[in-house]
């Protein structure tokens, strides 16, 4: 063994650790499959703790919400009774319209798009660092989840699965600065590229819009299936700022996502979307 001065020994140890961690990071980003089993092993061992912590938090917060809700329940009840009466009338009208719509679709031989098969999942963790926008969900390969599956909720597009272990998976949100996909301005049908932003946090930007694009404030941006990652038509967000590059005349727009990422509790993983690129 080398007989080194303790100070030098410390420095050598530190350099070795840094080199090992750099190799680990490089493997994790460039060829994740090579360390998948190792990561999977740790993730499985830690899953009960993670699930337990999430369950306790969920129980406490829903208990608190219940207490708050009870306070307003009478007023809410009165208001809802009025709404139910109003909507009962509308429901009858809607049924008529729905039937008429179905008949017309059949007449036009309209091919309805296949319904997605979804797996509901609970958010059990979030990356605490502001640099990353990742959530952990309680569904993994055991439940049929695979890498690159789109994730949505009732508000719109949430992101895509980037890592899968047996009982949990990690989802990269569309607001992540590492995220990028194609999008469409719903009103004008212009195609662009939607990227997550590191600043301002929680927003996206649609770029590469055509020179003559007439994108406006408030326009709805939906997903496009051009890149093959997400199905067409999922709501991404609304335009809150339009920018013009006066050299290239290219337009881009800042998007505020429709999904409330700070209060994300349940999501749906689309399990039967066949990627175009595959």
């Amino acid at each position, binding site marked *: 063994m080398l007989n080194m001065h303790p100070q030098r020994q*410390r420095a050598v140890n*530190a350099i070795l*650790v*840094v080199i090992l*961690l*750099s190799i*680990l*990071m490089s*493997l*994790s*980003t460039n060829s994740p499959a090579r*360390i998948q089993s190792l*990561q999977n092993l*740790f*993730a499985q061992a*830690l899953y009960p*703790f*993670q699930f337990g*912590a*999430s369950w*306790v*938090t*969920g129980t406490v*917060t829903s208990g608190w919400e219940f207490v708050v809700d009870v306070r307003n329940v009478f007023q809410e009840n009165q208001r809802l009774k009025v709404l139910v009466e109003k909507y009962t009338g509308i429901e009858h009208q809607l049924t008529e319209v729905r039937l008429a719509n179905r008949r017309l679709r059949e007449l036009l031989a309209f091919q309805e798009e296949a319904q997605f098969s979804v797996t509901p999942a609970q958010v*059990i*963790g*979030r*990356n*605490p*660092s*502001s*640099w*990353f926008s*990742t959530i*952990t969900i309680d569904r993994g390969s055991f439940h049929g989840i695979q890498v690159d599956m789109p994730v949505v909720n009732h508000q719109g597009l949430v992101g895509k699965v*980037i*890592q899968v272990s047996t009982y949990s998976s*990690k989802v*990269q949100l569309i607001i992540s*600065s*590492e995220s990028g996909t194609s999008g469409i301005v719903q009103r004008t049908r212009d195609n662009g590229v939607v990227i997550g932003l*590191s*600043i301002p*946090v929680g927003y996206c930007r649609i770029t590469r819009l055509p020179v003559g694009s007439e994108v406006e404030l408030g326009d709805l941006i939906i997903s496009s299936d051009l890149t093959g990652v997400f199905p067409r038509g999922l709501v991404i967000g609304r335009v809150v700022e339009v920018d013009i590059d006066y050299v290239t005349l290219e337009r881009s727009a800042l998007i505020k996502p429709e999904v409330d990422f*700070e*209060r994300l*509790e349940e999501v749906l993983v689309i399990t039967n979307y066949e990627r175009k690129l595959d």
Partner: protein
Amino acid sequence: MLPFFLQFAGVLAAVLLQGSVLPVIVPWLPFNPALILLVFASFKTPRNRLLALALWAGLLQDVMYGEVLGLSMLGLYLGFMAVHEIKTEFVDHPFTACALRLIIAVLIQELTYAFFFYIRGATGLFAALQVNAGKSLLANLLLLGLAFLWLRFRNKKYLKGLMEEIS
């Protein structure tokens, strides 16, 4: 000093708190209780064990909540290597000593993240670093303040021991 096993279990609890509990209650602030725990541990824990604890905290963060395996480990390892070298003789109050160590650890961790994104070709990193480091410092100094309040009322003995260690 707490036994080895208890320190590791404490770090696990703190990481669970920061990834599965606090983001649900206060999603807008990146609280990092594991960092606070490591700062407290840094006064009495020997260097090698402190660095092992930092690596353990990083591993837990990366496996349970992170995107890149090794990144939090590297940030925490470098942060607490620097923290261990800090001489705190010139500060006479435990809060100031802890805050100083916390600031160093947070800044080194944020710089590690920024460097990682720089290598991956991200743009606008300086602005992102300003905002993220600012948020992280604010949140964790606030958490440190709350921890001190709690120690003052519930565990005066520990605070006294910490003061003796600093002086």
